[in-house]
């Protein structure tokens, strides 16, 4: 056809797109089918707006909280408040009847646990009678008469437990606490409750004052969030689409350049979310932001392609439409592919560096979306475009570099002149921005409050503030108390400890009040003593306490204390009501309470663990900063290395990094000075800003290279060509993306506003820096990679390495994160049960080591070993007592719960009389001449969960015991090297959750050793191994460790695990 005297197609790229255009119909049809298929999955998309969705399911604090939920049925409730500002507050028939009505209606709801509804209508009063004590429901008789209402008011005022927690201390409000059965259904429950509230029988002009109903609580926040954000995005997404359309129209003034990119947006969004639904990933709160992101990004590729297409029309007015499309594609596919790779890298860096699933998926599906946009832009777009008749754009009537038509081109050219005439001033200004940024970054704080996701004018926000101001608080910090024996909680000393804990908790800032079983006991004690306030305390007599419970059960409901104590009277829950959810404000409290528990609840008789929403939040928010920094770093490195590879110069890498680096600093400055905290939403901005922002730098550098390679004109003149051509395209690119994100500014959801605003600022900074700093730097530094004309942009190696890098990272993270979740619920559960096996807080024992070599020579060593848990930290000390020549040697280990933190270890060598710090990274080294590794000695027949992928192999009978065989393969080569194993098979007895036999294979896959646990007995109610035999099949050496005098009861003093003890030796 129009082969232009045989010189077209002349490059492989042209040939490729030429044949592609020839297959346009199949391409269009396949593209549309794919679009339809992915769109068909969309209805399957599941929303998950709970805050637990943000937490890594393996986070210990979350696991523990679920345990509490199972035990006491308490989690994140919806809290409904009835408020009356009248003088008598809620103590009037209307308020109380309203309370009754609401409580009854809520109790009937499907997702509300009827037994766990806490309201005045379900609670009981405890009063003394002649023959002891009587338990009477507050609402036994409907409080309609003045007398009954006065009785009720008096009873509440005599019952400190309910003040602040159930009824405001000033009597002006009361609450209903509704526990949900399934937290994921909280959106529906919240809506139903709001419907009830709307229809509540409220007298408008009552003589008793106006009753107001507020609905809040963590459950409500989760519930409302979905609706709230859903409504918001329903409005935002079309708006973003509209804005982008306008920009496209302004850029080209043609219908095709306005409509076709929108088709690509559609395909990208449908493809991404359809894929998400197909693989069963939930749509989280922040996923809403992804739609807007993708809209902005998806048009960028077509923007550059259309720019080129119109330039080609101007340059070759006689060429056919098909040829023009092919030429445009052939010259644009490289930069488009590169910017796609960098943007993907930016998104993708969120995946491995974060452990919050919503953010991980944001990164993963963001990258997938960018990929889909690329694929459609390079196939679907040319296919359709080639079908349309040739029609120029009025903005492209002269060659780009000389272009003076069009306001944008003139504006960019003017900018170019200013920049190139004052390069030094530009650089000084740039340096000032960097300095300011460095200062601003130091002011950024980590914080997260879900309630701040709502506008301050929102009813839920107001309800939250109102309830938390009036009541003791709707944010819970719980302490779970555990005792070893049944009915231990009848002991006065234990109750006194709980009481002291409550007193301590109440002194903590933000804690409005506390509740526990002790409050009931004190109330009961007072009741049986004729309501004498002097007896509002814990009885000294354990028997009396037991009797109080018995007396109570005579007239009360058996389930009445379910939320405070278990039926065995062994476990108790102390709940502190906090009126704020701020991480910054609460972290001190969490740490202080942890310290308190560590010092006051560390005996075998009573232990305590911190839990509750406030604690869970503390633990996951704490990690935001690290994961944020990691993702910034990874994204940054990816960008630098990609640009360096692409331009074959490390300097080019740094050049490309300058605009994005500056944009990140500017963002930090805005955050630091604008009091925008680094939270869930904002922690993601940086990676995305880097991925998007680097595009400007890459296009700019590429274009500077192109124009500098021309032979005529001064360097300054040649650099000026950049502005009306590439500069103009970048301007529209910038406008599209930043306005796309800017749309988020009109959101009703504050975090989305912040996220959108920050990314928009980052993009603007990247654009401005690319257009100013980079040319100025080029002019002053004259870097070789720009001037060296021979070294053309080497796309292939760069693109290949970059894609390989991406695929490798992807496979690695997918494998390490997903693989083990998919194929192992069973084996991993077995191992989890092994890990959860009771070990006792401390233990002391004698250990005899018998080491036998291949020829039968036996060496025997005697030791005394002690172990104690300090919270989750485990400390072990071993003293050698015989033979004489090693007597006095002692070995101390601190094993930290965080697997990423190395243990600290010390060895005391009597010959040197010195405690020596030794490194602990070599977990696989043999422990002091035995055939067990340090890791195995330390773990005491347990295993580090994160070291292996587990798989069930079957069952095996060992010494008549049925065991489950679980295979463990080290998760990666590093771990394998550390442990010295390539494979481990545990034969685990499910009756005792302990391995009876373990086989090990070495790094070369050879059978290495077998460890057998023998003489397993229950001592002090804990399964204990009394003999461990380890046989090394390679060396023929074997070790027999015999334990005797095992004692879990005798307290092992904390001071036993100090370095000075090693030196002093064992008494």
């Amino acid at each position, binding site marked *: 056809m129009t082969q232009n005297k045989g010189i077209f197609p002349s490059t492989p790229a042209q040939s490729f797109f030429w044949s592609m255009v020839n297959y346009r119909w199949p391409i269009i049809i396949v593209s549309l089918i794919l679009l339809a298929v992915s769109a068909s999955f969309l209805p399957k998309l599941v929303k998950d707006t709970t805050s637990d969705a943000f937490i890594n399911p393996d986070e210990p604090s979350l696991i523990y909280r679920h345990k509490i939920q199972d035990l006491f049925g308490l989690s994140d409730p919806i809290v409904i408040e009835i408020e009356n500002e009248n003088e008598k507050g809620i103590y009037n028939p209307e308020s109380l009847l309203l309370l009754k009505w609401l409580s009854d209606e809520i109790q009937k709801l499907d997702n509300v646990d009827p037994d766990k509804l806490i309201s005045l209508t379900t609670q009981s009063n405890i009063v003394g009678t002649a023959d002891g004590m009587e338990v009477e429901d507050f609402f036994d008789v409907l409080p309609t008469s003045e007398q009954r209402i006065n009785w009720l008011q008096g009873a509440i005022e005599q019952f400190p437990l309910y003040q602040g927690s159930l009824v405001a201390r000033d009597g002006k409000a009361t609450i209903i606490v509704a526990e949900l059965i399934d937290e994921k259904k909280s959106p529906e429950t919240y809506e139903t409750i709001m419907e009830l509230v709307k229809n509540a029988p409220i007298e408008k002009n009552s003589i008793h004052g106006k009753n107001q109903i507020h609905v809040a609580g963590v459950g409500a926040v989760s519930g409302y969030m979905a609706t709230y954000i859903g409504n918001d995005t329903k409005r935002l997404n079309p708006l973003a689409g509209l804005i982008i359309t306008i920009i496209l129209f302004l850029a080209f003034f043609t219908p095709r350049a306005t409509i076709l990119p929108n088709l690509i947006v559609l395909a990208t969004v449908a493809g991404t979310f359809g894929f998400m639904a197909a693989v069963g990933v939930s749509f989280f709160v922040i996923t809403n932001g992804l739609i807007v992101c993708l809209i902005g990004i998806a048009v960028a590729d077509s923007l550059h392609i259309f720019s080129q297409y119109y330039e080609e029309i101007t340059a070759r007015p006689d060429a056919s439409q098909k040829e023009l499309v092919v030429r445009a594609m052939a010259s644009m596919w490289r930069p488009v592919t590169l910017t796609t790779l960098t943007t993907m890298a930016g998104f993708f860096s969120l995946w491995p560096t974060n452990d919050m699933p919503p953010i991980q998926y944001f990164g993963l599906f963001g990258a997938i979306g960018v990929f889909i946009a690329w694929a459609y832009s390079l196939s679907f777009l040319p296919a359709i475009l080639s079908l349309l008749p040739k029609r120029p754009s009025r903005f492209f009537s002269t060659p780009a570099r000389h272009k003076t038509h069009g306001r944008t081109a003139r504006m960019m050219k003017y900018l170019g002149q200013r920049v190139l005439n004052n390069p030094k001033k530009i650089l000084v200004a740039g340096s000032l921005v960097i300095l300011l940024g460095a200062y601003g970054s130091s002011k950024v704080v980590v914080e997260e409050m879900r309630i701040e996701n709502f506008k301050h004018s929102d009813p839920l926000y107001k309800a939250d503030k109102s309830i938390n101001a009036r009541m003791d608080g709707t944010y819970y910090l719980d302490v779970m108390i555990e005792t070893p024996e049944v009915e231990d909680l009848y002991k006065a000393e234990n109750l006194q400890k709980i009481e002291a804990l409550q007193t301590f908790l109440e002194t903590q800032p933000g804690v409005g009040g506390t509740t526990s079983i002790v409050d009931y006991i004190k109330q009961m004690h007072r009741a049986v003593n004729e309501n004498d306030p002097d007896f509002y305390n814990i009885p000294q007599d354990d028997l009396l306490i037991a009797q109080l419970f018995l007396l109570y059960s005579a007239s009360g409901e058996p389930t009445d204390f379910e939320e405070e104590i278990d039926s065995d009277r062994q476990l108790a829950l102390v709940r502190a009501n906090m009126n704020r959810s701020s991480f910054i404000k609460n972290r001190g409290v969490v740490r202080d309470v942890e310290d308190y528990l560590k010092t006051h609840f560390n005996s075998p008789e009573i232990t305590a663990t911190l839990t509750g929403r406030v604690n869970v939040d503390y633990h996951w928010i704490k990690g935001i900063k690290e994961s944020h920094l990691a993702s910034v770093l990874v994204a940054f490195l990816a960008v630098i290395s990609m640009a360096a590879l692409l331009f074959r110069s490390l300097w080019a890498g740094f050049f490309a990094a300058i605009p994005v680096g500056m944009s990140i600093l500017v963002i930090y400055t805005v955050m630091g000075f604008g009091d925008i905290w680094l939270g869930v939403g904002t922690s993601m901005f940086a990676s995305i800003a880097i991925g998007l922002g680097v595009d400007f730098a890459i296009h700019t550098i590429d274009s500077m290279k192109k124009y500098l390679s021309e032979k005529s004109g001064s360097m300054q003149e040649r650099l000026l060509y950049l502005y009306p051509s590439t500069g103009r395209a970048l301007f529209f690119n910038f406008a599209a993306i930043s306005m796309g994100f800017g749309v988020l500014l009109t959101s009703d959801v504050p975090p989305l506003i912040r996220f959108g605003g920050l990314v928009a600022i980052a993009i603007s900074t990247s654009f401005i820096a690319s257009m100013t700093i980079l040319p100025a730097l080029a002019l002053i530094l004259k870097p070789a990679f720009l001037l060296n004309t021979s070294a053309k942009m080497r796309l292939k190696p760069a693109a290949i390495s970059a894609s390989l890098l991406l695929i490798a990272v992807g496979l690695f993270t997918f494998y390490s994160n997903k693989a083990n979740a998919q194929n192992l619920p069973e084996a991993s559960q077995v191992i989890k049960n092994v890990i959860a096996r009771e070990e006792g807080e401390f233990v002391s024992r004698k250990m005899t080591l018998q080491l036998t070599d291949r020829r039968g020579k036996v060496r025997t060593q005697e030791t005394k070993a002690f172990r104690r848990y300090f919270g989750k930290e485990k400390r072990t000390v071993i003293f050698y007592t015989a033979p004489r020549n090693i007597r006095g040697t002692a070995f101390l280990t601190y094993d930290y719960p965080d697997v990423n933190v190395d243990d600290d270890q010390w060895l005391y060598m009597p010959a*040197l009389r010195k405690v020596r710090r030794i*490194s602990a990274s070599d977990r696989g080294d*043999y422990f002091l001449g035995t055939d067990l590794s340090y890791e195995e000695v330390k773990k005491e027949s347990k295993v580090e969960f994160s070291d292996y992928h587990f798989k069930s192999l079957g069952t095996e009978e060992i010494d008549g015991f049925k065991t489950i065989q679980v295979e463990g393969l080290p998760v990666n080569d590093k771990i394998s090297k550390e442990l010295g194993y390539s494979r481990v098979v545990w034969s685990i007895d499910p009756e005792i959750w302990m391995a009876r036999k373990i086989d090990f294979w070495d790094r070369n896959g050879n059978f290495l050793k077998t460890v057998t646990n023998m003489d397993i007995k229950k001592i002090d109610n804990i399964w204990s191994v009394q003999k461990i035999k380890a046989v090394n099949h390679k*060396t023929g050496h074997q070790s027999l460790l015999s334990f005797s005098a095992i004692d879990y009861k005798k307290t092992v003093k904390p001071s036993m695990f100090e370095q000075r003890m090693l030196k*002093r030796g064992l008494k």
Partner: protein
Amino acid sequence: MTLLRMFILAGSLLNFSALPAFAENLMDNISFSAIAKSEASVGLTKSELQKWDISIRPEITMDISDDLRLTAIGLGRLETRDALEPGRPGQSMRSSLSRRGYIGDRIDVELREFYLDTSFGDTYLRLGKQQIVWGQADGLRVLDVVNPFNFREFILDDFEDRRIPLWALNLEIPISDITAQLIWLPDQTYQQIPEPGALYAITSPRFVPALPQNIPVSFSPAQKPGNFFADSDVGLRLSTFMGGWDLTLNYLYHYQDNAVLFQNKGPDNIILSPEYKRSHLIGGTFSNAFGSFTLRGEIGYATGRYFLSNDPASRFGVQNTDEISYVLGLDYTGIKDMFISAQLFQSLVTDDDPGMVRDRLDSQSTLLIERNFMNDSLKASVLLIHSLNDGDGLAQLGVEYDLYDNMSVKISADIFYGHRHGLFGQFSANDRLSISFEIGI
């Protein structure tokens, strides 16, 4: 008569039947052990028997109560060759309570350690004759100067035998996360340097003043501190474990363990007057592990140090200066069963004098490579100590094998190299090959 009455009285007061039980109880709380060792060395230069020591080190511990333990460690040694300490070496550098007993020229006996351990709450006290070891460095001394050393075998002897235990009070008081160690040492015992004629007598001009040949030299008696309280040493060490780091801060106010040799140069004679001098030592240590590496170090600043000077202007042939010294060590355990440790020691004097015999900056480095075989029953090691200033040094190679639980044999070689004027080079004729047996009882 009176005596008899007293006996009857005592008998009626004491329940005689309880006595055996008491004794039995006491015996239960006493434990006895001992290490017997025999070591023979053959000189490599002249291939003669350098030494053949046979020693026994008995140890008795007695638990008087739950919180009170008495430990006594003795040493009896037969030096068959009588070459290391010929005859009966003088003991003027030792306080009367810390002296050794001689049986003939070849046997000496010593009460090495004798102390009581007790604690009051978390506070711990060790009272009596003991070794107190400070510092993080191996073999190189910056802060490990609390106890003086006996250099009868230069530095070839075990650490355990090299240090001279002192009568001291050692109190450890934990104060929240910090442990304060307070030490008080009234024992005025100082370094024991081999006398001229001994195998390891010091000849290096770094330590022995170069005196004119033709002028008679006489010694005046050593000026040794004598006041029990005023001349005692005191020290304080604060140690803590913080953010993975082991840190200590040390201060010691003490007499330096080597006497300063003042030279009174007259026209026709020279009188050497040894005198012990006070010094303040302030310093600190740190250590932490990073992966397979352990980093450790110590630094100390000592006031009032004296070094030999050849400067004719210096009146007494010595130069007074402060000294700052440090050791930086890096241990590596990344290879299975291997232990590699390198150390750098540097000492800098603050007041340099052109005639000072030592260099202003004195540097030594050490390298230790150890490897365990056969489940730790065989251990091979190479230790290299090298002076960066003089280019001399010492290489020690050893192989130790546990024959039985309580019996081991060790074969080792000690090779000195470098110029005769150097600290190590002065013994380059003393290279030796040794074999030793150790039995624990």
